[in-house]
């Protein structure tokens, strides 16, 4: 498969506003590393990703932004060869389980032969497609630890 390139973090930061598929889901921490932004209910502590507008456990709307764990375990994946315009096919897509009952769908930035169910994976940022003008689009990805 075509391997999405992993960008250096400060480059991602420079483009975060316009080039991320979903800028709300990603931020850079104090050391410049990408982090997923989820939500934690201040009332019942339940985590959400993406950050929930309303807590599905207790109905509270008081949900703070939190940085989620950077490492998780691959639950399942597929190498996708057919997708709408804008995605760079083939791409690897998987569900990564983070601690505390959070499951994240993500592009996997690794060659297909290196990917296996239950393997540990680490958060990164990479090019996942292109916009209408052909400019690269970024998103959070997971790579092999």
């Amino acid at each position, binding site marked *: 498969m075509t391997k999405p390139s992993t960008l250096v973090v400060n480059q991602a930061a420079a483009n975060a506003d316009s080039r991320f*598929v*979903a800028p709300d*889901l990603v931020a850079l921490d104090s050391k410049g590393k990408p982090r997923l932004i989820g939500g934690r209910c201040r009332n019942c502590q339940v985590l*959400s*990703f*993406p950050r*929930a507008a309303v807590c*599905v456990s207790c109905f509270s709307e008081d949900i703070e932004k939190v940085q989620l764990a950077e490492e998780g375990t691959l*639950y*399942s*994946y*597929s*190498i*996708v*060869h*057919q*997708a*709408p315009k804008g*995605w760079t096919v*083939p*791409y690897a*897509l*998987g*569900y990564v*389980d983070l601690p505390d*009952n*959070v*499951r994240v*769908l*993500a*592009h996997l930035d690794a060659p*297909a032969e290196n990917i296996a*169910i*239950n393997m540990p994976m680490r958060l990164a940022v990479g090019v*996942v*497609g292109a916009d209408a003008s052909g400019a690269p689009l970024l*998103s959070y990805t997971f790579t092999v630890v």
Partner: protein
Amino acid sequence: MRDVCVIGTGMIPFGKYPDKTLAEIGWPAVKEAIIESGVPHKSIDAVYCGTALGGMLAGQRVMKTLGLTGMPIINVENACSSSSSALAEAWTAVASGRHDMVLIVGVEKLTKFGGGTLPLEREDWEVNQGMVMPALYAMRAKRYMHEYGLSARQLAEVSVKAHDHGALNPNAQIRKRVTVDEVMSSRPVADPFTLWHCCPTGDGAAALVIGSVDFAREQKSNPVRIAASEVTSGIYTNGYRDMTWAELTARGAREAYEMAGVGPDDVDVAELHDAFTIAELMYYEAFGFCERGHAYELLSSGATSLGGNICVNPSGGLLSRGHPVGATGAAQAVEIVRQLEGRAGAHQVEGAKVGIAHATGGGIAGLDHGACSIHIFVR
């Protein structure tokens, strides 16, 4: 609630009709169902039209072509369960006594999108990260294969069976038999799926006329009764989920069996929602046709093939008959009714008395599926 029976059925061969409008695809199925029912065509009390992507007032567009208007026409959208949900609403209308005779039509034209995977809502965050329907089912397949040791070649046998059945069905979109090697060597869609693991996109329409049991018996002796009519939705979580278990379908099946007073051992024929090969195997387990992890054994035993004791997808299913999303549920119901009436032709399941139609689907983050509708028919 009173008993409800099927009085008439209609459907067009599923396929690609890019030059026809949605109304032109839909009306022949409606006309056939009404003529088959034998009731005066102006006596329909209400119409429930299922379509997922047909746009506003699809039911009115179909019905006005036949000059049948003025009654309540309700358009129902529930993704792949659109026309089976329409059937459930129609059943409720008749069972409750509100109406005596109701028409259901499912109609869809997917060729207007020019091929490719089904268009999904980009505001769904998983869709926005690259989720497509084949990938969702493919991840179920990968995990199932990991946990139960199923191989891709074994999975391909689902497609071989579907096309063996569909080759006998004049209404099927794909009437070509395939071998395991042909399935395995076709172009990749979403690993482990090649093209032949996936239902085709296309167009189609199917329709039913249903009525109260007393009304139905005026038209025909021994009409097929709708013994269970069930719609459920997926349960939301943004956390972990066992993707090897079709929780939504299993829950719906349990409720439908209870409503009908039958169990998995009583079922002779079933049209299950085999959008992708893995789905059929997972639904064997969800309907209790076998234990968890044993679906391939059931398939390879021949029990779910024509001639087996619980024939699944004699029509060819979504894989072969086709899956014009909103039309599928009505087409499954038409198939089961014709099976129970012994007029399915070359793909008849001999002596079938109890049949299931099951349509579920809709890619939506956090839910197993958006919707699931199950009907059990008894004769």
